[in-house]
């Protein structure tokens, strides 16, 4: 397996007042390029923490986090920013679209902070086409259904052509129909070569991924292929 993410002895401890809470405890994990992985577990088991460490949004208390051949847990804030800007994309539970922008402007957002703004609109339209929403390009966020908003947020992740797509309970707030649309979309993106790691509570979605990692009390328990 050609690993795109490697976690070596990773622990994460949060301070809650005087108390210390271990969100992750000595986790070793490899995720290969072009994998489609689900991370499942009960609330507070450390799923989202794991995802945030992989994406460079958070830093481990101890251990190493590698993204392909780059160790990212020791990077400076600026270097980590470059990782988030170019190599990793996030899909959040509630789409996190900017309500003041329309669909295509939300998709273009990552380019507002990097080079290549000139062709951003064309590229954004292509990303919207990939999620089947090219006809909703000029619709405002409040005019989109929950499923459509989530597809727009996925189109936004595609704008960066990332090495890794991280999704934190992307179907958590959706009805079944919308949920399945998102699942099919992820499967299609994975078929096209994107590496996807998603956190979910949904057993059905977990079973549809190629690899399912169960986690409890900050440690991976078992894997189901």
């Amino acid at each position, binding site marked *: 397996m050609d690993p795109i993410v490697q976690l070596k002895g990773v622990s994460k401890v949060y301070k809650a007042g005087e108390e210390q809470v271990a969100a992750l405890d000595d986790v070793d994990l490899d995720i290969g390029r072009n994998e489609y992985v689900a991370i499942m577990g009960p609330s507070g088991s450390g799923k989202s923490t794991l995802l*945030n460490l992989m*994406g460079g*949004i*958070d830093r481990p208390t101890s251990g190493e986090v590698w993204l392909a051949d780059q160790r990212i847990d020791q990077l400076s*804030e*600026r270097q980590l*920013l*470059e990782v*988030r*800007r*170019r190599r990793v*994309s*996030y899909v*959040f539970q509630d789409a*996190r679209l*900017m*309500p*003041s*922008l329309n669909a295509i*402007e939300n998709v*273009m*957002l*990552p*380019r*507002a*902070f*990097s080079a290549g*703004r000139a062709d*951003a609109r064309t590229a954004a339209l292509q990303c919207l086409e990939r999620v089947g929403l090219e006809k909703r390009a000029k619709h405002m966020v409040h005019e989109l259904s929950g499923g459509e908003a989530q597809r727009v947020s996925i189109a*936004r992740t595609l704008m*960066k052509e990332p090495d890794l797509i991280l999704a934190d309970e992307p179907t958590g707030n959706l009805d079944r129909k919308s949920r399945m649309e998102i699942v099919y979309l992820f499967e299609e993106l994975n078929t096209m070569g994107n590496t996807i790691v998603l956190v979910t509570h949904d057993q059905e979605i977990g079973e549809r991924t190629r690899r399912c990692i169960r986690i409890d009390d900050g440690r991976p328990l078992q894997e189901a292929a």
Partner: protein
Amino acid sequence: MNLFTLAAHNLFRKPFRTAALVLAVGIATAAVFATATLMHGIERSVDHGFSKLGADLMVVPRGTMVSMERALLTGEPSTFYMEADLADEVNALQGVSTVASQLFLTTADAEHCIVGDAFLVGFDRENDFTVMPWVSDRLDREMQPGDVVVGGGSDFELGESVYYYGQYFTVYGKLDRTGIGLSDNAIFLDLDEAYALAEASRDYDDVELGFGPGDISAVLVRLESGADPERVRFALAQNSGISVVAAGNVVTGVRQNVVALFAGTALLTGVLIVGNILMISAIFSTIINERRRELGLLRAIGARKSRVFNLVLTESAMLGAAGGVAGVALGLILLRIFNRTIGFHLDLLNIPFLWPPVENIALMGMAAILMALLVATLGASYPAVSGARLEPYDAIRAGE
């Protein structure tokens, strides 16, 4: 999609809040702009008017100093007289360069005068240094008997015929407008013709001009370069029948009136500015709090801290600029509406006023907009720093 469009979208998201902030900044800007315009107008008028007056001292009959100052500043007709020989006496004093005599008279509110209660000033053309050098418009010929020069605020046109006590005159020239009442509102005619008017007035029962040939109202004194005005004043004070008005003292008096009038306004404006900075700071802190997750998202998708900082500052700068433009427009409208009232009240306070030229008003407008921009960005700078410092992880999970 760039920083400006994103900032503009954010502002339009809450139109009422944005409009209220623009209005608040606008009101402060309008206060600053209007106050600055009025003060500049007064300052310019004082500088302009008194430099054109050209006299360092004015000698008037004892007890008429206040009337003279009022006549000078507001152009209100005043009549008081003394003997013309005094001019020679003053001219003989050490340190005096030139003297020019003037005679003040008013027109009657009767059919034989084109306008009643106007201020006529007879001036000694031979020694004059306060009228003819400042004629800005004149007929294309030399001034001749029967000609008058009107003040800069007069409605009479060049070549127009005017009559006083049945005597007809031609408007030969017009003075540059200064804001100083005497030079803006009076009508200047040759001293001998002023005496002739007194003769002519005898034909009318309803008129009694209280002077005769050989009387004058004031002697305008120009000192030699380097002469000590106090020494000349002391010498003049030996004559118990006269009072001396120093131009410098009149200017100081005007400035004191201005300070008394505008001190409260300036203080209020300062409070408005500080209040605006604090209000913007408080509101932008709330905005940052509202948008924690959005800012976290921006950071998560690769926005640098500086970009988040710039985004917040761009929003505040847009607000400030809009407030500044609205404030200058509001200030102009208010100045326009209260144009006459302002003039009237300043007149009551013996404060000369001349509207500044358009280019100066435009410059002050730009300065006011710049100030609004500064106020807004200064107010938003601390919240912007807080927003930029948000850790993406904490910001994204805010409210969960």
